[in-house]
């Protein structure tokens, strides 16, 4: 594990690897703007992981960490600047792969209203991923069946998107994503705009569908608590890097990266008894710009534990426990609790 960017965290799970991302980078070239030169944005900068069949891979991070760029890379909407993404051994972004892989990689977006064609009946949008593989009548039948599976009656399928509620629209988007029996469904903040009760309904629906179809989910969110609820493994991203990757079950034993800890600390617990008098880790400043990422460890400018070494030596993603990978020079050596020594208890 000397060079994390080339040796990936390969899960020991007995499952089949569906997708493998190897040292994937996506840089957006700078452009000459109005009198000002914009530098290259290092949106995703060397990410490596594998997805097993039937798992839910939670990808968590704050705005600007590159999680949505990574989502688009995974489904082939962006071509990586460097590195490869393999779906069942086939390069996702190879020329002409788009046609072949259509339907194998699906995505559900945050805004369901904006991702359904307003001028088409819902059932037609849901049937679309089947174009090219099935006859017209079969497509419609499959779409109606899938709509029913996600809890939308056939008559709702004949309506237009604006005639459905937000929750119903999101159900339709999930139906569209699943109708062509995809290898991977990327859920990009798919539950973030929904109310708590709807979120809970959707999570239980997604779980049921996964059990039935053995789909593999990539669940992208800024909300650690929902990721924890739904995921089997969780990857935490910061400025284009995965800084920690661990099974959701290992969460309780604690995260090891200082950023993950700050993130966990910042999650508000719906319980005043826990929440009162709780002192937060103060991360200094804002997230640095992705066009000027700090040298060394990306997090060292805000890290309460940063040492001299962190400012020039970029830590690789290294396995610390079973299935638990961390990119921090001092991961095992930090104080056991998340708080700096002066603050109160959790």
């Amino acid at each position, binding site marked *: 594990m000397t060079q994390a960017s080339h040796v990936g965290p390969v899960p020991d799970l007995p499952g089949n690897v569906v997708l493998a991302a190897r040292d994937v980078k996506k840089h957006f070239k700078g452009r000459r703007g109005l009198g000002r030169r914009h530098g290259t944005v290092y949106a995703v900068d060397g990410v490596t992981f594998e997805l097993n069949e039937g798992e839910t891979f939670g990808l968590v991070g704050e705005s600007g960490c590159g999680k949505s760029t990574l989502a688009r890379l995974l489904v082939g909407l962006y071509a990586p600047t460097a590195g490869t993404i393999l779906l069942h051994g086939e390069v996702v972004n190879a020329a002409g792969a788009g046609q072949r892989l259509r339907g194998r990689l699906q995505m559900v977006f945050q805004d369901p209203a904006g991702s359904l064609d307003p001028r088409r009946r819902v059932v037609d949008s849901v049937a679309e991923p089947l174009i090219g593989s099935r006859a017209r009548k079969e497509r419609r039948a499959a779409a109606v069946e899938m709509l029913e599976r996600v809890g939308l009656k056939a008559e709702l399928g004949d309506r237009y998107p604006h005639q459905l509620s937000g*929750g119903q629209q999101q159900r339709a988007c999930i139906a569209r994503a699943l109708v062509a029996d995809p290898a991977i469904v990327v859920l990009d903040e798919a539950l973030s705009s929904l109310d*708590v009760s709807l979120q809970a*309904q959707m999570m239980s629906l997604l779980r049921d569908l996964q059990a039935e179809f053995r789909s593999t989910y990539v669940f992208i969110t800024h909300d650690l608590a929902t990721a924890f609820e739904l995921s089997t493994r969780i990857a935490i991203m910061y400025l284009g890097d995965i800084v920690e990757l661990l099974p959701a079950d290992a969460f309780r034993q604690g995260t090891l990266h200082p950023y993950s800890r700050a993130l966990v600390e*910042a*999650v508000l617990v719906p319980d*005043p008894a826990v929440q009162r008098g709780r002192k937060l880790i103060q991360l200094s400043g804002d997230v640095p710009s992705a066009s000027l990422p700090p040298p060394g460890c990306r997090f060292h400018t805000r890290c309460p534990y940063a040492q001299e070494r962190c400012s020039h030596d970029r830590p690789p993603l290294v396995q610390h426990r079973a299935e638990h990978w961390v990119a921090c020079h001092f991961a095992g050596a930090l104080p056991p609790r998340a708080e700096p020594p002066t603050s109160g208890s959790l």
Partner: protein
Amino acid sequence: MTLDPVPVVLSVRDLTSRFFLPTGVVHAVERVSFELHAGRSLGIVGESGCGKTATVMSVLRLLPAPGRIVGGHITFEGRELLDLSDEEMRRIRGARIALIPQNPGSALNPVLTIGWQLREALQAHQELSRTEARDRIVEVLDLTGIPDPQHQLDRYPHEFSGGMKQRILIAMAIANHPALLVADEPTTALDTTMQAKVLELMSELVDSFEMTLMLITHNMGVVASVCERVAVMYAGQIVEMGSASDLFRAPLHPYSDLLLGSTPRLDGRRSAERVIEGKPPDLMMAPTGCSFRDRCPLAEPGCAEPPPFLEVVEGRHVRCWVAQRDTSSRDLPRRSPARSAAEPSTSTDDGEPS
């Protein structure tokens, strides 16, 4: 309770607001009553469309057309707000009652410097010279944790991050030392780590300025960290109200219970099995009976009658027949006979727990 020595700052009684659309009438706020004592904090929680924002906008008398307040009383610092002229109301808004809006991105004018906007907020309510205003602005910006405030005044909103913009808006809200601070989803647009910081800042400022806080949110975690009292809204009505510690430990209304149960949390309990089926009722229909009964696991035939909003345990109100019956038979702390005798039975009193 009535025994609370702290004076009441805001008292809302039977507030009813409706939206008169061409297609029908939306019953957005239905007979909402609560009181806020000086220096205390009340969180109003609920899901989208439950009427929490409409309630707050009614209190500020900023309900946009075709919305209208159709009944009730809003008493603030002893004055009936619904009787005031627009001009009188303008003098209260921003000076005595301040609002922290939901979206920091769109709440600031993009073509004016933040110094200009803060000065405008100050001079609208106080006679201040340019230098006095400037000193005051630097002071409040410093309080909200804007680094190097004197050099930020000539910058424009887009030069600040979302968290910084929200701090600027908080500074603007507290600049005139308001008695009541109203925060409408103040951290919803922010990242997790920034949310925690902004909430901490808000709590500190509310304490040190002895402001009264009314906070609107859909996030149970936000309420739990900031508010002493909680009102849970559903379909335009407050269905349960009580101290945060009581309500979160043992919610009385089935809706509050399910809402808490379906909130994802990191501290172990992975209980997503508790799902509220169905969707909220159509507010175009006038409410009949309990508005939650179609989705309620405890619903019984009697729920077709509208339940009253009663104080079942000291300081705890609930609008549910089942909870009212069960609580009276359960071994919960009762009101002492002496006190309940001293209270009129119609009281919707909203006391603080000791």
